[in-house]
């Protein structure tokens, strides 16, 4: 009886949370609530399969690097990102060099565009936050187009 009550309480809570949600956070909250009590750990996911949490659900990269886009991405990276990311070494945050061998393009885009939710709810981003001594990825308010250019620049590194 005790157990049943507890379970129904949890179920109710999740339903309520779901019905209350109206912003983008609700999706993640809902997903969290559905998951079993033990937290998802990064080892269980192939990072290349994870698209992260955010506005980008699908992104296909062309075979050739778009040089113009990459040049503009480099400019944006220097202006908005280089205070924490160096291209050759680990700094405040990780180096973006070879990031597309470690992460899906969607995940990278979502990390740039939606860092608060990523470090709160994405298992890989959560681990990275711990690894980087709780230094949070700053939201630099890039537009989707700007983030896409930065991603293209990463392909040249």
């Amino acid at each position, binding site marked *: 009886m005790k157990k049943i009550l507890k379970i129904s309480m949890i179920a109710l809570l999740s339903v309520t949370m779901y019905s209350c949600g109206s912003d983008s956070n609700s999706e993640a909250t809902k997903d969290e609530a559905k998951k079993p009590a033990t937290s998802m750990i990064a080892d269980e996911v192939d990072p290349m399969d994870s698209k992260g949490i955010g506005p980008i659900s699908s992104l296909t990269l062309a075979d050739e690097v778009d040089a113009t886009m990459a040049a503009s991405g480099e400019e944006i990276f220097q202006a908005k990102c280089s*205070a924490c990311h160096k291209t050759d070494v680990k700094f405040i945050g990780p180096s973006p060099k070879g990031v597309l061998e470690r992460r899906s393009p969607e995940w990278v885009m979502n990390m740039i565009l939606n860092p608060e939710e990523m470090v709160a709810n994405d298992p890989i981003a959560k681990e990275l936050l711990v690894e980087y*001594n709780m230094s*949070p990825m700053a939201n630099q308010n890039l537009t989707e187009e700007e983030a896409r250019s930065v991603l293209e620049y990463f392909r040249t590194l």
Partner: protein
Amino acid sequence: MKNLHKISFVLVLIAAFLMGCNNSNKSNSGALSGSAAEKVYVKPGDHDDYYAFISGGFSGQLAVYGLPSGRLFKVIPVFSQDAEKAYGYNEETKPMLNTSHGFVPWDDSHHPDISQTEGELDGRYIFINGNNTPRIAKVDLTTFETTEIIEIPNSAGNHSSSFVTENTEYVVAGTRFSVPVPQRDMPIKDYKGNFKGALSFISVDPEDGGMDIKFQLIMPGFNYDLSHPGRGDSHGWFFFSTYNTEEASTLLEVYASQNDKDFIAAVNWKKIEEYVNNGGGKKMPANYAHNVYSEETHMATSTMKKEVLVVDPTEVPGAIYLLPTPKSPHGCDVDPSGEYIVGSGKLSANLTIHSFSKMIKAIEEEQFDGDAYGIPILAFEAVNAGSVEQAGLGPLHTEFDGKGNGYTTFFISSEVVKWKLGTWEVIDRKPTFYSVGHLMIPGGNSRKPFGKYVVAMNKITKDRYIPTGPEVTQSAQLYDISGEKMELLLDFPTIGEPHYAAGCPADLLAENSKKIFKLEENKHPYAVTNEADTKVVREGKEVHVYMTTIRSHFAPDNIEGIQVGDKVYFHITNLEQDYDVPHGVSMIGANTSELLIMPGQTESFLWEPKQVGVWPFYCTDFCSALHQEMQGYVRVSPNGSSVPLKWSMGENIE
């Protein structure tokens, strides 16, 4: 039994959660609708319905509260230095407080008024007057920052200010004290007939809001107390209450209360504007500061202006009339239709209401009752529409609900009285705690008031709060005025003296509220928008540090080669581009305040090291989990030392 408890607990939880999902607007309905607590309760995370901008009086600032909760959100520094925000301390905003008397770090802020278009609040700016060293300030309502201050020459005790005309053509500033114009060395006893009262019409540029004194009307030497614009048919006129028409210079509490009636001066500013546009008026030498803050450079500049256009009222016949009004009237308030001008004779028990249409008729029929210094006085009976009789003691100020009612404060009898326009009958009265000055209905000084709440601002609170020594807080009180009778809902403490206020619906401003300053738009001459460009530059004894911040480090954070006796300017750009991530900074021993730098902004402070050593600086705004790691060192060597100028971050300084 245990289980039953649990079940009911779960049921309560469900109910609570379901209720929590409801729109908060609905929560006032139902069996508890009489509860004052529920009417002011804004649950955690929910937003208030209205902004209230309540002046801080002798604090010199303007505070932003939410209604109905009474929660304080921000104190906007206007006329006083604010160490918390570095206003008046950092190099960028020091010029904002420049005047013809030099740097004045304080003033007495009184009457905020929100800009209007077609007689309705438009939410672009809020203006406020500095009383003591006459100034008018403009606050930008996208940033909630003071962006312009203009000093008013020939004025003293800038009190009948700062009210706007229907389309914010002008913000108006009238003098409380009359003074010699121009100022000169003369005996005080020769006041009468020699001192003058300047009423200033400051034009507001429709594009950028830039203020400029278009003309000053040089009136007889009365005290000009408050003013309000005409609207609707009376648009084009401005009304000023006067006292001390006796022109006393001493013991005004006796000598300025001799006359049964003083005046409300009706000024046809459109007529004077036309006169001025056709070359009328006289340019007079003056000296006053005009201080403008640029959002692009994040800096203020102060310019001294040397001339002002003055107008002699007798030279523009038909533009100015005096309406006899008992007795030392304070408030001078115009109803939403523009027909009624309410004079609150503060030494009288009655309110006197003049009719605009009767005034126009009386002017046409020349129903005059003499003149004062050549300005026609209209016959009282010819302009009077009625009076609210024996409504209370010491009427001060009236606002309107847009539903045909006026609400007047009575200082001596500590109450708000609701009365009906046209019939002048008293409908309701409620006590205030205590000694109420002004009151405010959001939009209450416009064609379209939002008549849901009135805020009364009290001078004395005595026993209303737990005591805090001899000095106790002043307060505001919120009344629900949506029904026939007013209902007191809430007391809330305020900063300084809550003198007067302006309010508006939250959605007029909320969506335009700026979140960050874009780095690519930063034109500060000492900005560095990229960590790679940070540097330290010596120019003789002056050293300029071009520094950046981002969570959670400064660049550079190690500096050497500074010497005792240097003037070190830290220019710090916050590279963050996210909402609500300011960084602060302070240097040990700096003779100034911290900086509080918004995302994308650049601010500067001056440090003059006096001792050899290695001195730290750190981030003063709790910015992140690594906030306590956000710090740096400056090595200070003796004057003339050969230690070279160097800077670094992330490596040992070589």
